[in-house]
């Protein structure tokens, strides 16, 4: 589903964000990307949804070659992904349901399809009762659930979550993480960047650790059994 091959990424100011990164993620996997701030987690995330392009090497996501993707093909790739951020990125002047519906509206879906799918994902994230609430009326955990519901509404093959629990308290973190596990259990690939080491230890999912832009540890290669056990 995802393959990075000898990927380098440097910025115009000369800073090297990624150095020779190679890994592949298969169907059904849940992968945690860890590392300190500035290790390169977010850069990998941005490569996955074509916000940035590699300086060299190859990035393939769900059949698309990000390296040579045409600008008009980027929306097609993004419609096959669900993307979740630390800061939720919800529109403040729209209700929870409208925020979720927005992701379907941009694809030109029909109104009755939109209503049915929004109701379904709201139920999936446990927020059916708050569909008409605006983001400011929701807790951080609830806002992140709305963001996850928005990411799910297009039935993505891959869910990309960049520090989705970064600003949440412990209880909300557990809730959001459990939601991501359920989503993965239903067959969606989940790639989650986090620096929450407790989460990494408890989860026992495949973990890729980055340091200074390089992969320094990949549990699939170093401890393949542990990864299998975590599934």
């Amino acid at each position, binding site marked *: 589903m995802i393959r990075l091959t000898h990927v380098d990424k440097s910025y115009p100011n000369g800073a090297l964000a990624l150095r020779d990164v190679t890994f592949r993620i298969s169907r059904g996997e849940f992968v945690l990307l860890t590392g300190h701030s500035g290790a390169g987690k977010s850069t990998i995330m941005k490569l996955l*949804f074509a916000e940035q392009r590699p300086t060299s090497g190859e990035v393939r996501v769900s059949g698309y070659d990000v390296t040579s993707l045409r*600008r*008009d093909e*980027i*929306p*097609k*790739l*993004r*419609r096959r992904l669900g*993307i979740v951020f630390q800061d939720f*990125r919800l*529109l403040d*002047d729209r209700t929870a349901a409208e925020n979720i519906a*927005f*992701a379907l*509206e*941009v*694809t030109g879906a029909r109104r009755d399809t939109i209503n049915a799918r929004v109701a379904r994902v709201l139920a999936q994230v446990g927020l059916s009762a708050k569909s008409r609430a605006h983001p400011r009326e929701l807790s951080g955990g609830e806002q992140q659930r709305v963001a996850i519901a*928005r990411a799910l509404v*297009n039935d993505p093959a891959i869910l990309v979550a960049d520090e989705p629990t970064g600003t949440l308290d412990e209880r909300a973190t557990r809730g959001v993480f459990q939601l991501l596990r359920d989503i993965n259990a239903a067959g969606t690939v989940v790639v989650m960047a986090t620096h929450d080491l407790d989460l990494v230890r408890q989860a026992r999912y495949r973990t890729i650790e980055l340091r200074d832009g390089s992969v320094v540890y990949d549990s699939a290669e170093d401890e393949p059994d542990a990864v299998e056990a975590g599934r």
Partner: protein
Amino acid sequence: MRLLTREALLSFRRAPLLSTLSVTTIGFSLFTLGLFGLVAINLREALRGLEERVEVVAFVLRGTPAETITLATQDIAAFPEVEDVVYVTEEQALARARRELVEFRDAYRDLQVNPLPASIEVRLKAGYRDAATAARVAERLRGFEFVEDVRFGRDWVQKLDHLRNITGIVGLVIGLAFAAVAVVIIGVTIRLTLLQRAREISIMRLVGATNWFIRGPFLLEGALKGLMGGFLSLLLCYGGYLLFRDRSGGTFGGLIFFHPVQMAAIVVFGVLLGLFGSLVSVGRHLRHV
């Protein structure tokens, strides 16, 4: 389509002040353009009145037989530039002078001999009432043996030509300048809206919106602002027109306002300006996000 309209209208509700400002600026830009247009059409109307008076007069030698003149008149009427030809006899010329030149009425009454020559008055067709054509026709009239002299008011025909050309050029230059200013203003106001909604646009792109989908509401918004600005400018122009016409104490009582087709053209021009301003502004913004 419903979504497009909803998104475009939403921006009016979200930023009423900015939207009002945009519409007002477009309205005033087009108002200035419209005022110039009004001056231009009224000037053209006035010139048309003058133009109709462009005529070439050939004075006939005394004693020329009436048949010769009749034949010549038929020849002249067949010139492609000529609308009609009138033969004015010596007696008719004297009668006209007595009627029209009031100051010399007494002098003309006491005359023993009529000093005025007979003449052939040639009016030119619309589209041929310029100095070059008048000179050409005059030259041909001089070719008739019985013609003593030809006059066509060369100076004022030439001045009329100049005036018409200058009005056209000045109108075009000022019109284009104001149109450019209107495009820039619309572009700036749309850009302000874009900056205000940058977050929303970035979210749209993350959930897979195409650039045309993002552009759509902004283009419609620009077009709507242009439409409203167009109507506002017509209102302002009409107000200005009424004020000028009624306060001028009858001097400009004959002023005309835009024809419905011209009014529609102003509104359509406003819509095009709005569309163009938005297109440029959104295109630039999307390239940088």
